[in-house]
């Protein structure tokens, strides 16, 4: 249950970030994103899970206090909208205002299949493998470069 809550917070923070980043509103906080809070159980978050590079996460809380409602974002299989509460310059809470699991909305978008998509922050898994699937090397290089550019863009 706690794991679930932590995941929800992580997803919320990401969604909040993309919404804020996407709407280019001068009134919205444009500074870096604080690290998502970790549950007391020490459940790893996306930022510290075995060194998974997370281009959106950085430290340094510089938000203005208040409550910010993100715009409605089309997640293709439904709409997402979140509200963020900033206290002491940090994200104190992220609440869902709209989520794709909202049945009515989902049914509208997709009438012939029950949408069951799940979202999570990626985490490294350390088990031994026989084979690896992934985009080929030039793509990896491109993404590592993009990840680096994204992290610089937040500084």
């Amino acid at each position, binding site marked *: 249950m706690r794991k679930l809550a932590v995941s929800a917070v992580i997803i919320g923070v*990401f969604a909040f970030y993309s919404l804020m980043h996407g709407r280019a509103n001068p009134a919205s906080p444009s500074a870096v994103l604080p690290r998502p809070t970790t549950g007391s159980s020490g459940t790893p978050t996306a930022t510290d899970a075995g060194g998974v590079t997370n281009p959106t996460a950085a430290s340094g809380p510089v938000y203005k206090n208040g409550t910010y409602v993100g715009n409605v974002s089309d997640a293709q299989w439904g709409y997402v909208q979140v509200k963020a509460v900033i206290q002491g310059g940090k994200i104190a809470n992220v609440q869902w205002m709209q989520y794709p699991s909202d049945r009515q909305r989902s049914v509208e978008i997709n009438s012939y299949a029950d949408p069951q*998509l799940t979202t999570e922050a990626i985490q490294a898994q350390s088990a031994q493998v026989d*084979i*690896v*699937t992934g*985009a080929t090397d030039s793509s990896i290089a491109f*993404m590592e470069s993009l990840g680096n550019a994204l992290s610089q863009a937040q500084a």
Partner: protein
Amino acid sequence: MIKETRLLMGMPITVAVEDRGATQDDLESVYAYFVLVDERFSTYQASSEISRINRGELAPEQYSEEMRTVLALSEQTKRDTHGYFDIMRDGRYDPSGIVKGWAVHNAAQLLEARGFRNFYVDAGGDVQVCGKKDGQLWRIGVRNPFNRKEHVKVLLLTDCGVATSGTAVRGQHIYDPHHPSVRLVDVVSITIIGPDVFEADRFATAAFAMGRKGIQFIEELSGFEGYMIDAQARATYTSGFERYVLRP
């Protein structure tokens, strides 16, 4: 177990056979097949059949049987994916989005015809797994696109195909045919599990070209599961995906 990796078609191709009795000769026959495919379909080789077609040197009735098959499969895939899969760009054919999976599938059938049941063929991350390894399911790692030394999921698979499409794969050959000038950066990679590697590969390519809609397209496709990673390091996966995932 006999296993080898060679660089062919611009990527590492690994063939591994678990069954007793597999010899170097078996591996050679598979690699010889890939060399033939490359000679026919490589857009990087001026002498290939596809290059000759693109230069207008061959009339359709002169096309080889294999070329007709690949063009027909491409046309079929274009229909199956609402036009998101298209090998025609700027008036030239680039069938690399379908040839890889098709060739790996055929290579696997070649091994099957030689009597083998437990093996895999992996061409640049497009994989056909058959049977098992030491009685266990094959373990396939989904590479972290932000850190190539890590994997973000471990899949337990047998008798199926898995393929991943990503941004700028070998010089941006994946693009949205409906908006050719728009670079696809929001979705970083999409991994598809399908009934075989040919099916997984063609739908991975098409789903990637669909952007964020791609994963929903896979959700609605029976017999397929998918795992999409976006530029914010979030993953979105289909309802049946988790049953293939090794519990951490």
